[in-house]
């Protein structure tokens, strides 16, 4: 029944997206593990890891699209939720190292031994249990988003002010995590992971497995997001985005709508971060950098906001371009990224997907893709 509800709302594009991801989840492990290394179809392990990373970014973009594209909340701090999920996963992985660290301390991670700490800080308790750690992956970003949103939405902080405040939030977290005595590894972050659930991390099979897992979680996130936005609740969200005052005057509790979608989005971002960390092998405070969060926003804008598939698409496209540029023309990547920000906002307000849809239909694009231009006159 739940599956019926989840799949019932899918359009053609949605089906294509799900089928593509499931196919990739099957095909990539086959190409990476079963096809012989010298075959032209064989996939080198670093490509697998790269693609897995892209999928995590796509999930972050999806989460961001849910709040920005459908509810008009431009969060410049979603990287914080991503990083918090990543830290929760990283803490579990740290505890799994056990006595195999440099200092061979069975209880304390290396950096705590290095700092001469005697006992495990309270915040770390329980992280050697996988289910607890996974609960924290969702709870920590969720609770932070709830507390933050509770204050922000109730006092009607919106528009540019909200964006700046979210940016301040991730900046404050970055400063906090950079401190050694905050207890999460300081500026080195958490790294040197060995295995997860007893499975060694640095094998081709684990990498391929993480890719498939990321693809599956992306599918689930997409289905959940799609179910939210195509429900009656989702219609109200879009109304909040387009005319907040009007929907408030009609008697809707705008802050509750915003809060719910903000928390769901934060949890999604946290899960994306948790999938990201084992694949890249490190999490450090620079993930909290405000620039990262803004970069995630441009993925959504490039792909097309207000269309979940577009956000995922944008994340993959922009990150592919980033991988190419930083390898081939490192000095020009920032020029390209800057130009992307400007050109997308100026000429592609609906993103690549919007362009494609408009081409195909040759008429007015669907309602979900056309935010009503806010009334002129300052901060909306």
């Amino acid at each position, binding site marked *: 029944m739940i599956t019926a509800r989840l799949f019932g709302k899918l359009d053609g594009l949605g089906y294509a997206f799900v089928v593509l991801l499931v196919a990739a989840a099957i095909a990539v492990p086959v190409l990476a593990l079963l096809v012989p290394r010298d075959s032209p179809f064989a996939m080198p392990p670093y490509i697998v890891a790269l693609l897995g990373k892209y999928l995590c970014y796509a999930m972050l973009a999806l989460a961001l699209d849910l709040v920005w594209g459908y509810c008009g909340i431009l969060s410049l701090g979603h990287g914080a939720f991503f990083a918090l999920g990543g830290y929760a996963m990283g803490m579990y992985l740290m505890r799994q190292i056990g006595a195999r660290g440099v200092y061979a301390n069975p209880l304390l991670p290396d950096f705590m031994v290095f700092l001469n700490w005697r006992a495990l800080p309270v915040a770390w308790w329980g992280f050697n249990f996988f289910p607890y750690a996974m609960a924290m992956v969702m709870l920590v970003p969720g609770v932070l988003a709830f507390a933050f949103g509770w204050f922000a939405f109730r006092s009607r902080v919106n528009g540019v002010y909200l964006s*700046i405040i979210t940016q*301040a939030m991730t900046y404050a977290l970055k400063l906090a995590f950079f401190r050694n005595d905050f207890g999460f590894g300081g500026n080195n972050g958490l790294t040197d992971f060995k295995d997860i659930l007893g499975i060694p991390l640095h094998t081709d099979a684990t990498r391929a497995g993480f890719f498939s897992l990321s693809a599956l979680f992306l599918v689930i996130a997409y289905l959940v997001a799609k179910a939210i936005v195509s429900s009656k609740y989702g219609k109200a969200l879009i109304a909040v985005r387009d005319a907040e005052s009007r929907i408030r005057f009609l008697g809707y509790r705008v802050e509750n709508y915003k809060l719910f979608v903000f928390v769901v989005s934060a949890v999604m971002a946290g899960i994306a971060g948790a999938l990201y960390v084992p694949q890249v092998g490190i999490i450090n405070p620079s993930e909290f950098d405000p620039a990262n969060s803004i970069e995630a926003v441009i993925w959504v804008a490039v792909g097309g906001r207000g269309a979940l598939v577009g956000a995922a698409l944008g994340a993959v496209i922009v990150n592919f371009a980033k991988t190419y540029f930083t390898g081939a023309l490192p000095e020009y990547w920032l020029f390209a990224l800057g130009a992307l920000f*400007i050109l997308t906002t100026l000429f592609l307000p609906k993103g690549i997907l919007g362009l494609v849809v408009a081409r195909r239909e040759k008429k007015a694009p669907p309602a979900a893709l056309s935010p009503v231009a806010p009334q002129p*006159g*300052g901060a909306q």
Partner: protein
Amino acid sequence: MLIRTLSAFLVLLCLGLATSASARADALDDTLARFAADKFPESEKAVGELAASGAPTAQNILEALSDNRLYFDPGARKIYFKDASGGLFDARTGEKASAQNLKKVRVNNGLRSAIGAALGSMTLAAADPEKRIAAAEAVFKSRDAKALANVNAALSKETDLRAALALRQARAAILLSSADAAESDRLAAIGVLKERGDQDAQSMIDEAAQKEQAGPVKSAAQAALSAIQFKLALWSVAQNLWYGLSLSSVLLLAAIGLAITFGVMGVINMAHGEMVMLGAYTVFVVQSALPPSLSEWSLAISLPLAFIVAGIVGVVIERFVIQFLYGRPLETLLATWGVSLILQQAVRTIFGANNRQVYAPRFMSGGVEVGGLSITTGRLWIIVLAIIVFIALQLVLRLTSFGLRMRAVTQNRRMASAMGISTGFIDMLAFALGSGIAGVAGVALSQIDNVSPNLGQGYIIDSFMVVVLGGVGNLWGTLLGALTLGVANKLLEPFAGAVLGKIALLIFIILFIQKRPRGLFALKGRAVEA
């Protein structure tokens, strides 16, 4: 005044010399004869007598002795010294001399320290009051009991107020640390040191309070100690206030342009920090292009240039990007972020990623001490600049037709437009003005921060916070926001550390904005809900 006292002093000195010249001549001969014995105890006696004699050549002789440049003629029992270049002089008269078969007067470490003390107490009688103060300060630090007689002698003759104070403090330091001084003297010494009230006095009194048995001296020392500690704590608060004021002025300069563009156009310019950076690089370019003779004027030349450079870049951004995003503030935010990335990379490509060296003109380097406060001149000038910029902006907004129009657009864009104000043109000018002021801020920041492509990034979030806190209804809000954040930041630092203090402030702002979502000075009326 100074010259009069000095000349009076000299006249007295001459009179004294004349009356006792013959008697002293014999004493000096006896003293010098002691060196010719070439025995350490004899030499040490001679050093002490020489310091007390006030002979004109005494200082030369002592310095020569400590540098192994003092010689004696064993036959004639006459003393000579060589100067640093090797010329030989008669120690008795200080005139050039020539002699054969000279032997060196030997020196050991005990003798050297005696020489040091003698020289120190001799400069207590130097003609230059600054030198006397420095000598008294040296005695204060060393607390050498042997210098007490010299200090007392100097104190009885001293006419300069500051030098007398320094001498009294030196005497107090000696008396307090010598156990055999009279109790009343030691109590008075504690009083003098308490008046001085700095770190050195604190540690001296602390030491005395530790060593002393229970008694009036100990309790007086403890009372003085807590008084000094209180005074020092007050000074350190004042010092932190000063740092906070300095930070506030920087924040004000960086944020005020942002407040203008945000107020008028409702858009946040994420490239604002890069305008600051362009201003700082303008200083670098001006200083490299300017001939050395004009280097004192480099900042004066840079100020208008930075305003123009950043202003022109601002106009370009407004004309080619922002005006097309009119009414879409969130997209504007993203587009200007793109602009900031491009500007950063452009500067990095042109000037390199490393910090660029910018020098400070002479009038901006150095500092002054006011009581326990140390004030650097550069920071002082930045505060002055911030005040000037703030007043100038207020005048522009209040008194000019452009300011009137700008305020009208800020308050109600559509009504202003209906009244015939060309809002697009005002937007452009406001953006140019805001960017230009950012450029001016860059000139100031080039003096206290590294001139690198990332310069602007370090200030942009703080500037946002100032604008969020102050609101956009009024420039006074920006001033108040900058003062609050700057001073609070520096006052929190000693308790919480720099990072934790900053985090606490960010959390405070996030909570504050719950109470006043539009800042301290919000616009009132319909514009708010537009």
